[in-house]
């Protein structure tokens, strides 16, 4: 069979993709909010470190650890937003919500600000930007939303699907 014959030379044949990503069809804005809240939480921990009476060494280690985690969580927020914006929001979704591009961009800016410095208001802006993004996302999905306060620190209000 020709296919079997050619497959023996598979490593010499260039590949071409029909998709730039695996089209699993699973998109959920809650993961964006999850990372945004985690970013804010890391900021709060960092801001509270000076009151903990740590030794200089312990303070430095803890600050380094939480700073790295803060930046990781902010980057994850951006990454998950890019996936939803890039792979899910298209066609009729954007006709109905042409501001989706701006909302995604606002998350990028807010998350970058969280990475660059340690201002709690930047973290709150990030959560708020993600909430606005979530409202639009769930409307695109045809799912109603509700606002809930997350039952853990930093206990901020989040937009959740009303399932």
């Amino acid at each position, binding site marked *: *069979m*020709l*296919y079997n014959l*050619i*497959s023996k030379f598979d490593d010499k*044949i*260039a*590949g*071409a*993709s*029909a*998709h*730039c*990503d695996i*089209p699993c*069809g699973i998109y959920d804005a809650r993961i964006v909010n999850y990372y945004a809240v985690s970013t804010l939480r890391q900021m709060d921990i960092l801001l509270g470190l000076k009151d903990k009476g740590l030794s200089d060494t312990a303070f430095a280690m803890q600050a380094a650890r939480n700073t790295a985690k803060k930046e990781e969580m902010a980057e994850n927020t951006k990454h998950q937003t890019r996936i939803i914006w*890039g*792979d899910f929001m*298209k*066609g009729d979704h954007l006709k109905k919500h042409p501001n989706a591009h701006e909302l995604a961009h606002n998350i990028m800016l807010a998350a970058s600000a969280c990475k660059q410095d340690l201002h709690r208001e930047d973290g709150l802006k990030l959560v708020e930007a993600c909430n606005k993004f979530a409202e639009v996302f769930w409307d695109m999905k045809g799912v109603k939303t509700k606002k809930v306060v997350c039952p853990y620190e930093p206990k901020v209000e989040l937009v959740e699907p009303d399932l």
Partner: protein
Amino acid sequence: MSPTLENGDYILIKKPRSQQKLRPGFIYVLNHERLGRLIKRLDRVEPEGAWFSGDNPRSTPSDRIGAVPPKAIKGQAVLIISPKGVRRLKPRD
């Protein structure tokens, strides 16, 4: 590109002689500057470039692929070699 092409299928391509020879409805391999080497169906050719889309509803939308310059188009898929056999690729109805 499912159901036209499935993962692991082989295709034979022929290089277009010029942009004028590009044929909407046929499948092409292109080197996309952001998305890498893609295989997509040609929708239309416009002055700013060629527009492609996939056969699968979940494919990357055409506006995300954008207008592709002619030099990025490597060839038209003419033959598909799959475990089911060999067949010529036809234009979209």
